[in-house]
C-alpha cells in the first residue's frame, strides 16, 4: 500500500497495544477495589460504570482502531449505544412511574 496512508490500514505499534492492555488490567483492578470500598448507593454503580465506559473507550478506540478508521464506523458504534440508551430510558418512563411502582404480587 506504498505511499499513501489509507484509513483502513493503520498499523498499531506494539508499545501502544501493550500500554492499552496493561491500562485495561489496571482499570479492572481499580473497579474491583472501588467496589470493595462500598460507596453509598448511586456512587458505587456510577463509579463502576464510569470505569467500564472508559475501558470500553480504550478497547474501541485503540484495539478496534476506531481512532484511525473511517469516521462512519465510530458513528455506528455511538449510534447503537445511543439507541440502546433511548430504549432503556423510555421503558423506564413506564416502569419507574407506575402507580404501584413495583408490580405487586
Amino acid at each position, binding site marked *: 500500500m506504498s505511499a499513501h496512508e489509507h484509513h483502513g490500514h493503520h498499523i498499531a505499534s506494539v508499545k501502544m497495544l501493550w500500554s492499552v492492555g496493561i491500562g485495561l488490567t489496571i482499570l479492572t483492578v481499580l473497579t474491583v477495589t472501588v467496589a470493595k470500598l462500598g460507596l453509598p448507593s448511586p456512587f458505587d454503580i456510577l463509579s463502576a460504570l464510569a470505569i*467500564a465506559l472508559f475501558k470500553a473507550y480504550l478497547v474501541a478506540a485503540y484495539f478496534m482502531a476506531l481512532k484511525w478508521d473511517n469516521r462512519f464506523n465510530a458513528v455506528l458504534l455511538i449510534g447503537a449505544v445511543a439507541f440502546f440508551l433511548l430504549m432503556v430510558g423510555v421503558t423506564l418512563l413506564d416502569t419507574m412511574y407506575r402507580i404501584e411502582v413495583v408490580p405487586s404480587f
Partner: protein
Amino acid sequence: MANHSANHPAHVQHHFVDSDQQFDSAKLGMWVFLVNEILFFGGLFCAYIIFRAWYPELFTQAALELNAFWGGVNTVVLIGSSLTVAMAIRSAQRNEIKGLRINLMITILLACVFLVIKYFEYEHKLHYGIAPGSFWDPTPEKLAILDHPKANIFFSIYYMMTGIHGLHVLVGIGLMIWIYIRAGKGHFSSEYYTPVEITGLYWHLVDLIWIFLFPLLYLIE
C-alpha cells in the same frame, strides 16, 4: 500501483472494483453487524436495568453469590485475549504470518481459559441448586441467604446474559480456529487479511460486552 483494476488480485470478488473497496465494505459490514450485537445484548441489559431499578436490594443480595475474584480474573483473561488479537492483526499487516498464528493460538487458549472458569462458576452454583428457571431449587442454606421472593429472576437474567455471552465466546473460538487454519494455508498477507481484521472486531466486541457485564453482575454489594 497506478491502476488497481488492471491487476484484479485473486482475493477480490468479481463485484468489487479493487481490494480497498472490498476491505472497506467488509469492515463496514462488520460494524453494522456489531450494531446488531449491541442491541441484541441491549435487550438483556434493559431487562437487567429494569429489574434492578425495581429490586435494588435483591441485586445486592444475589450478587454475593457471584465470585468477584474469578469474575475479575476472567475480565483480565478477556482483555489479554483482545490484546493478542490486536497483535495478530498487526502481524498480518506486517506480513508476519508466524506471529499471526502464534497470537491467534494464544487468543484461542485464553478464550478457553475463560470458558473453563465460567464452567466452574456455573458448576458451583448449580451444585447449590441456583439454577435458571424451573430448575431453581436452592439448597436450604442458600435459600436462607437468597430469601428474596424474586431471586430466581436475578439468576434467570444472570444465566441468560452470561450464557449468551459464553455462546459468543464459543463462536469466536470457532472463527479463530478457522482463521488459524487459513493462515497456515497461506491465505493471508499484508495485502489481504480482511477475515483476520473482521474476526478481531468481533472478538473485541465480545470483550466490550464483558467489560460491562462484569461490574453490573459481580460488583454490586
